[in-house]
């Protein structure tokens, strides 16, 4: 197998090192998230084709949405050595399940109007539920990208997808009224969530990312670990 571009490791390294802090601290405050370091210009290398999707298994996402998300998640957490890539670990399946359930429907959020612009410190002030935001943004994003390059998001090569994600975050552009950085924030949060959740939720397949960071998972009895100086190397316990 060809060596993956070196910046893959940087991004994974970031996720893995911050995962040692509680997950909630990393992704709980969407309004104050820490983005991964901007990727250095990727070295030229063999093109890494987006992994195959499991289109038959989607609940909320339609096939073009699933392909686009697969292409983007594949660059947020690339496949490489040392741990699974985001796609193979089930992030897109996780996002699909989340969007089809109570999170996607914002069922415990206050979603009635009127809607005002709001300051960043005032959090989510959009009339879109998370599921609606994905649908809205992916459609608009595909149109922007197609107008610029003649290709759809899912057809972009690695370098182009990296550039697109960087722009979405750092030089926000309009997605039919919504800033691309807002959608980027949601996507990044859900991608991180989908990389580390209990396997019950469709991400973190085989608890592989927990093994990677030495997280015991839903293991209720950890008394002897409190003063143990050696890293945890037991198998993680999962609910599902």
């Amino acid at each position: 197998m060809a060596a993956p571009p070196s910046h893959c490791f940087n991004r994974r390294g970031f996720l893995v090192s911050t995962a040692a802090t509680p997950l909630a601290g990393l992704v709980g405050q969407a309004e104050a998230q820490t983005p991964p370091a901007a990727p250095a210009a990727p070295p030229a290398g063999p093109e890494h084709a987006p992994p195959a999707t499991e289109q038959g298994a989607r609940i909320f996402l339609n096939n073009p949405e699933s392909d686009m998300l697969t292409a983007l998640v594949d660059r947020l957490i690339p496949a490489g050595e040392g741990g699974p890539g985001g796609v193979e670990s089930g992030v897109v399946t996780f996002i699909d399940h989340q969007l089809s359930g109570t999170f996607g429907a914002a069922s415990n959020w206050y979603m009635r109007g009127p809607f005002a612009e709001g300051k960043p410190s005032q959090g989510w002030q959009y009339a879109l539920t998370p599921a609606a935001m994905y649908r809205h943004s992916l459609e608009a994003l595909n149109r922007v990208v197609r107008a610029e390059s003649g290709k759809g998001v899912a057809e972009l090569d690695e370098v182009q997808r990296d550039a697109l994600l960087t722009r979405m975050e750092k030089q926000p552009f309009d997605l039919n009224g919504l800033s691309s950085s807002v959608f980027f924030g949601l996507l990044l949060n859900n991608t991180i969530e989908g990389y580390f959740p209990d396997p019950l939720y469709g991400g973190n397949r085989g608890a592989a990312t927990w093994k990677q960071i030495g997280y015991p998972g839903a293991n209720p009895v950890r008394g002897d670990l409190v003063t143990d100086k050696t890293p945890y190397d037991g198998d993680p316990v999962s609910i599902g």
Partner: protein
Amino acid sequence: MKEMPKADVVIVGMGWTGSIAARELAAEGLRVVGLERGGFRDTASDFPAPNVLDELKYSLRGALFQDLSRDALTFRNNPNEAALPMRRLGAFLLGDGLGGAGVHWNGQHFRFLPADFQMLSHNKQRYGDGAITDDMTIQDWGVTYEDMEPHYDRFEYLCGTSGKAGNLRGQIQEGGNPFEGARAREYPTPPMEMGLVQQRFMEGARKLGLKPYPQPSSNLSQDYTNPDGAQMQACTYCGHCERFGCYNWSKASPLTTVLPVALRNPNFELRLGSRVTRVELTPDKKHATGVVYVDALGHETRQPADMVLLCAFQIHNVRLMLLSGIGTPYDPATG
């Protein structure tokens, strides 16, 4: 409107404050009705391991917190901003359901320092009268640390709090907080195990001449039976206290301490799914006569009572008072 028979006491909200009041007043022989908007939950049925150790469900999606689609609030960060709805949960988390926030609190169990009760007089004494200008709204509480000590003590023994005293009846104790107010006795259980990070921090702090001490916690270092006979078990350090219910009866909460006692008392009646909308007042607005609530089936219901206790958490208590015509809204311009 549906009319309920009059009670001696009606309590709005069954978190720590409501549950403690229910236990105490029912034991005094008063007929107490507890109204809680949320549902029932208990350790064995709702928080079994490993299911409750679910970061996504509890920590990130906030399964135990207030359902904002039903009860929302608006906020602003300064008076020049337009207040907007808090549409989804962020850092500010509100309890919901039997036991309230006491179910998903962390269990950090501090007392106020003596000076905390006397912020006005303490600071005047220390920095001179001029230090407190007219626009500062601080006041003394009206009770002192010494008044509160027996109650602190009783609550810690109810919870089984784990810690190390720093001041026993005026004698400074090695290993505790030397600045705390005097305690009548030691904590009911010794401090929790210190992890490697805490140990290193304590070493470093000691080298600087500081006096680090283990934080008092109502996550129990040992098995414990409280004075009411409630049994609790030693914590297994699963690390899922805050935002979660404890699977192991190791974290003191209304569910593991006061509620089982209150619920066994025939003087206490709990009504879940009951959302209080206002306090009813006498025509001169000097006395509360009961509350109006919407019951679990959506029926508006009146519960008359001689005593109305607002235990719905401060932000909800203030809102209920304002909706009922009690008091004047705070004006940041005038203080």
